[in-house]
């Protein structure tokens, strides 16, 4: 099982640095969770680390402040986190402090809204054949 570690926003960067020094060489994944109407605060950033030398995995969860929506960037420790953080910014609107280029990565640059938030509609268009009479 993967060990899960909850950290505070202000300790987050330092803790990641510590884990890197302990031998977690690889950042496997960085993503976010929207706990809309289920938990406070709303957003949580999840980082999965892997130590190849020790054959161990670790999951770091950090709660994001609702007002600032800001988390320190870990691109200075794991350069591979760059695109992951951009994706989280694009999809959830969470800002990463000291990120070299925090712009949208998947959606067009002029896109309004953050699609993976729970209160963002799926943008469905009603389709005619849905209400077509059923054929027995």
């Amino acid at each position, binding site marked *: 099982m993967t060990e899960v570690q909850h950290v505070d926003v202000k300790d987050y960067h330092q803790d990641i640095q510590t884990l890197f020094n302990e031998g977690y060489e690889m950042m496997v994944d960085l993503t976010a969770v929207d706990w809309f109407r289920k938990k406070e605060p709303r957003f949580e950033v999840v980082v999965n680390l892997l130590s190849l030398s020790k054959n161990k995995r670790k999951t770091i969860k950090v709660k994001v402040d609702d007002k600032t929506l800001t988390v320190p960037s870990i691109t200075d420790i794991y350069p591979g986190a760059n695109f992951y953080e951009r994706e989280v910014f694009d999809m959830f609107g969470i800002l990463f402090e000291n990120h070299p280029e925090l712009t949208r990565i*998947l*959606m067009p640059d002029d*896109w309004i809204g953050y699609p993976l938030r729970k209160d*963002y*509609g*799926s*943008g*469905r*268009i009603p389709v005619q054949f849905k209400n077509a009479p059923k054929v027995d």
Partner: protein
Amino acid sequence: MYSPDNIFTTTIDKAVRWSRTQSMWPVTFGLACCAIEMMAAGSAKYDLARYGMEVFRASPRQADLMIVAGRVSQKMAPVLRQVYDQMAEPKWVIAMGACSSTGGMFNNYALVQGVDHIVPVDVYVPGCPPGPQSLMHGILTLHDKIMAGEINR
């Protein structure tokens, strides 16, 4: 014995339409799984070369036909339109598969609900994905359309 004096008569319209159908070069525009079927249609077993269209051109300037093979995202839409605009007249568009025809199974914010929102489509090929035979039927339908239509659009 070879005789250079043989002639045949036709109308300019017919000759132009015939020449357009028999060397219709598609622009490479594979976007998703439909592109795999498009490649299969171009390869040895189905052999699009029979219709003079085995050369998928990487440059839109040399192409007559755009086969939109796959789902078109909102971000891809301006690119698709630009490639279409760069093609020289006369030009045609085939919407290959459910996604490029209607949006298909992806009824959401990220994808264009039918490529006919961006470019005029001549033939819609149904299927998810359509097999090479379906695509070739679509192409032959387009040939019929050209043979029956006006030469200046």
